[in-house]
């Protein structure tokens, strides 16, 4: 039986083109939806599975009040309680987020028992800092395993598997511990109708962090130069096959 806390971040879901705000300090989110990274969706799934035998699974996000939407999505798939740490995204850097998360971990579950396991994504989909989980582990003085795809908890030990340069790497780490997750080991479940109803009514525990932010060093955002379309259309349908095979021949990719 374990208490798990999973950390998620609300990020813009831009699939086609990205627009920046006028001051170039943020992605313009007015015309896009919001989501969380697939890594974090897998972390939520792993948390729910790990807590299924009578443990608890909580979720936390540091950011604007809008992140309640993402917290409710996690509640809808089986997470039991949610914490929103209200903070100004723009002023916070990865060390600040880790410090704010550490306060939540140290406070423990709603009934005051400690969190045994903290799950995060390996990297956030927007800032991609690749470090919040590791900084959190140092702030808490706990061991950390990064980039894992599966976890199994038994007898106070978390066993993880993840891809390494020479094969699947297995770690066995005593709890309490921090683990960062990469997509691929589990399929995140879809919310049931009941789950959605429950999530909608759930209370969100909103807190203010006592972190003096150091910031994130952002000077400005810029878009990579857009290449003008130079596509050569070889043709339509099956009739274009010879033209495509000509291209393969010219490129020398047909070996025989």
């Amino acid at each position: 039986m374990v208490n798990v806390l999973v950390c998620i971040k609300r990020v813009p879901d831009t699939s086609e083109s990205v627009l920046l705000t006028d001051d170039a300090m943020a992605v313009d989110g007015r015309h896009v939806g919001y989501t969380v990274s697939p890594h974090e969706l897998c972390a939520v799934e792993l948390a729910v599975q790990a807590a299924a035998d009578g443990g608890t699974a909580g979720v936390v996000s540091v950011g604007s009040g809008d992140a309640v939407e993402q917290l409710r999505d996690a509640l809808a798939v089986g997470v039991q309680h949610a914490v929103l740490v209200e903070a100004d995204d723009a002023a916070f850097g990865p060390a600040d987020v880790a410090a704010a998360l550490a306060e939540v971990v140290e406070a423990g579950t709603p009934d005051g028992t400690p969190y045994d396991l903290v799950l995060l994504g390996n990297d956030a989909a927007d800032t991609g800092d690749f470090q919040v989980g590791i900084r959190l582990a140092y702030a808490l003085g706990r061991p950390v395993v990064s980039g894992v795809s599966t976890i199994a908890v038994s007898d106070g030990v978390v066993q993880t598997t993840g891809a390494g340069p020479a094969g699947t790497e297995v770690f066995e780490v005593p709890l309490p511990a921090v683990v960062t997750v990469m997509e691929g080991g589990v399929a995140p479940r879809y919310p049931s109708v009941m789950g959605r109803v429950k999530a909608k009514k759930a209370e969100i525990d909103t807190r203010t962090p006592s972190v003096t932010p150091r910031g994130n060093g952002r000077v400005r955002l810029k878009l990579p130069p857009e290449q003008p379309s130079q596509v050569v259309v070889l043709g339509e349908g099956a009739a274009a096959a010879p033209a495509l095979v000509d291209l393969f021949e010219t490129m020398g990719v047909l070996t025989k």
Partner: protein
Amino acid sequence: MAVETDETGIALTSLETLTLARELAEPAGVPLHALLFATTEPPTEQMLGQLGEQGVATVYITAEPRLAAYAAAAWASAAVQVAQAVSARVVVASGTPRGGELLAHISARLDVAMAANVTAIEGLAPFTVTRQVMGGSVLEEMRLADSPAVFTVAGHACEATPAAAVSTPVVTPYRPTVEDADLVARVVRTEAGEQDHSAALSAARVVVAAGRGANGPDGFKSLLELTDLLGGALGVSRVVTSLGWRPHHEQVGQTGVRVAPDLYVACGISGAIQHWAGMSSSKTIVAVNTDPDAPMVTRAHYAVIGDLHEIVPAVNDEIRRRGH
């Protein structure tokens, strides 16, 4: 600079990172030190040659058997000890999973900021970098005010070029102090498995990729045939793995594998920025798509408009007809 090795010697991404690090060190008149975690075997002549071509002055090798199994905290502790011994002003690694993990540990231990996936150095005072965010679809100019400046270099963001003057690196074994607490999270065993395929995918010269347009798990027969005829590897979009049509290790993109083949044939893939993030370094991109306005089509070098289930079999037939 923490260096990674693979079957080619020094990994290509590490050579790229060394080039960027040298371009920083040379004008400043400071030496470039490389750190190799080579506990079982010393670096080969070939590796030393590659490091010399990059102008490396000293190669530190961690001669400590307790670092044989990968333990990020202990490796980072060793790297910090070397960095402090040489008073490093900049600590870098490539933006691989290992490189990013190691540097995140180092920056947490030193309590300094870290920038992930840097593509260029903008200025030294203040130390300012450009880095990839949002999977590479947006660039961020970021200030690194702390010392040492810690950052990873995005893969294939800059080219590995040899130094004007080749050096003869001095090999220095280094025995760091290792704390038991830093060995708690370490690899207890490695199993042969799935990632072997993703390594093959990321190194493939030709990638045939398919998305929702494949229409289902049975829609891959002709695509796999084409992959075979081109001697390439199959890649897929996230829609394909989410729907369980193909395994996750075949996924290309921001949360999947990054590829940089000579030829990328994208069939029935719309070209969402998160997919583009994983294959934009491909030399030649061919799109096969029913929609002439799909981003993959407009950003490709070549396109064939139409149903992949008609086009791909016709291409396979044509390749065989020509006797390839």
